[in-house]
């Protein structure tokens, strides 16, 4: 049976990719309709076709084959397809599940896919949209009393903001499950105080079945890096400004996909990643960010050594933060 669905999936994957690359929403809807008609389940369609296409979108951008604009356009098409799919699914009675994205994260797709998988399994899941603030989350929880909140984070630089969301959700007694690419290490979600972690929509279903109904407040973080994380977050604007000045990338009136522009716009993410590594007590946040950014810069014809200079400039700015310095050196 799985070979059959694999075949059906493969048959539609390229058609879907063509529609997404051409930013053709109608064509993408049509592929979705054909795939489901051919017997592909919603979950298989999402996993084998949509998520696969999104992975390719990310690769194209990282390799500089695609502009940011193309990436946005392709993602908008997939979002429209998944949204329509989610709307057509009949949801059974049962406890409400709230699916949200980390604050200031605009990659809504993973959360949207998760919402749709949960709905396909008959669960009453609601997606609150990209970048859900703490206030919005708490308001929705108070009004609707969900059984659990599922928070998605794609970027490890979002984790300090995710921690605040975890605190807000647990403050209402509601269990919070986290997931997404930001969690490459199990230490991160435990330190951030999440109730559970799910690496895939399928795992989320298992985790939900074992979740406590009520949880207490998130314990305060007392490790030495936690205090430094707060200081870095509070001074982030100044640190970014000083690091950019030290890097001296020249006139940035360049196309948005130029490596210098990409490096400059990612500097604030790097500073957030420092706060993230400190808060999660996990230096791999920074080593991952460094490797990724080197690839991105190299993919755009820049010298990856510029990323090393960025790290040096950061170390200089953060010279009064011993834990941060150790992590930057790692």
């Amino acid at each position, binding site marked *: 049976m799985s070979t059959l669905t694999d075949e059906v999936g493969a048959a539609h994957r390229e058609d879907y990719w063509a529609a997404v690359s051409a*930013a053709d*929403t109608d064509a993408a809807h049509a592929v979705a309709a054909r795939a489901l008609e051919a017997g592909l389940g919603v979950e298989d369609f999402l996993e084998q076709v949509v998520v696969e296409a999104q992975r390719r979108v990310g690769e194209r951008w990282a390799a500089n084959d695609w*502009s*940011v*604009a193309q990436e*946005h*356009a392709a*993602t*908008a*098409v997939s*979002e*429209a397809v998944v949204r329509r799919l989610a709307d057509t699914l009949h949801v059974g009675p049962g406890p409400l599940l709230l699916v949200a994205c980390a604050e*200031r994260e*605009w990659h809504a797709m993973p959360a949207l896919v998760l919402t749709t998988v949960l709905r396909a399994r008959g669960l009453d899941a609601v997606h609150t949209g*990209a*970048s859900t*603030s703490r*206030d*919005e989350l*708490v*308001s929705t*929880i*108070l*009004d*609707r*009393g969900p059984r659990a909140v599922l928070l998605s984070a794609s970027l490890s630089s979002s984790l300090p903001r995710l921690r605040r969301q975890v605190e807000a959700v647990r*403050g*209402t*007694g*509601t269990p919070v499950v986290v997931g997404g690419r930001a969690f490459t290490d199990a230490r991160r979600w435990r330190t951030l105080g999440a109730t559970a972690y799910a690496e895939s929509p399928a795992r989320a279903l298992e985790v939900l079945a074992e979740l406590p*109904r*009520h949880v*207490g*407040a998130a314990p305060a973080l007392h490790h030495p890096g936690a205090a430094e994380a707060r200081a870095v977050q509070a001074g*982030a*604007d100044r640190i*970014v*400004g000083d690091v950019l000045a030290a890097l001296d990338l020249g006139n940035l009136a360049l196309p*948005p996909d130029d490596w210098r522009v990409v490096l400059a*716009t990612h500097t*604030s993410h790097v500073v957030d990643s420092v706060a993230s590594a400190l808060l999660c007590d996990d230096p791999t946040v920074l080593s991952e960010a460094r490797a990724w950014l080197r690839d991105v810069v190299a993919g755009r014809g820049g010298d990856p050594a510029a990323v090393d200079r960025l790290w040096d400039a950061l170390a200089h700015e953060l010279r009064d933060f011993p834990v941060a310095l150790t992590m930057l050196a790692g």
Partner: protein
Amino acid sequence: MTATTRERPARLLADSRSAEPRARLAQAVSRAEFLLRLSRSVSAVQNPDRGLEALVELLLDEVVDVAQVVVRSGPHHLVSSGTHVDEPTTVRRPLADPLPRDAAATMETGLATEVVLPRHGSARREALRSVVVDPDLAARLELSEVELLVVLPLTARGRTLGSLVVGRDRGGDFSGSHAFLGDLTDRIGVGLDATLLVAESRYVADVLRRSLAPGRVPEVPGLQIATHVRVAHESQAVGGDFFDVLSDPAHPDDLMLLCGDVTGKGVEAAVHAKRIRNAVRTSSLVHREPGAVLALTNRVLVLEADQDDEFSERLATAVCGRLTRDGDRLEVTLAGAGHPDALIVRADGSVEAQEGQGVALGLLDGADFPETTACLDPGDTLVLYTDGVTEARGVHDLFGQERLEATLAAVAGMPAAAVAEAVAVAVSDHLGERAHDDIALVVLHREVGAGA
């Protein structure tokens, strides 16, 4: 459940009056510690359904073997109940559905009662049904060894807001724990009272919020419309920026667009914004030209401002547009009232500001709102926005017109949702964690290809 896990309830409820001092002290400490956790739990969960469930679960885990809480919440009785061997269930019942006799009596009189359960037969069934709301639970208890149910009033601010029913397995009673149960119901009463008050006012706010929220955007063949709104006061979820997309049911190709901004933030601004939207909707039934629609809207607002009403003295700006189709030709006519100019992003990436310069709304009776007209070709995108976009404050400067146009140029020809997202992301990155004004954006994209 094993006997060991039920030792804790036995200790909390044990009659220790004749026990040695150390045992009495230990019990007093456990009771105080439990009451503190109970208070925290009841006051943390400010959603009535979940709050009740959390409460019943805590009671069943740690104190009693049977529990039922009934409170009045809006037009319902909320009932959560269960036993320590199964998960609690919560139901909402209309107030008109009568409660069981003894449960109702306690709600009315505010007095506690004890219901002794006969060992078996119809008398046992009758006694259970006089207290227990959930028929499944009553049926299960019929087969249990519970001999006594105590019905306690939940009181706060001199008012009985609900009742708590508790029972113990195998003939256990509450003879040594009346004072503890009194403390327990006091805490629950105060906690639930706050939760119910919050729920009541949130319900009112939610109705208001839904009535103020922008309506659904109509689907028009060949056009994509995307919107983005971010309010300054996120916990209020409403603001003074507004938009509307109105299609004439008789002429789906004839579309009226509106985007505007009322001074101030939060719910007061939203109330005034809703008035303006209503005025524009009414005006557009009379006139189809944006300049005339704004002129009539302006007259309404000037009249209202004269009537000395706290909501109507606010300044408002708006841009109003009309889209008409003639064969392949899609024409957009725009009129502005002190609002940032609408932008047309051509498929080739050039950005044109559509100048329409009338004064802000509600200031001058008889004000004039000149119109401009442009063509929207396949692949072109029309963008209406509020000054929350351009005035988003960054580290060094405001987001500004130049950044907005550069952001738009980079997504020329892209689907409307991608354009709206690109602007939302750019503004959000520029803002960082800084406070911001209300932000609204309407993006209308003419598709390339058949039907467009």
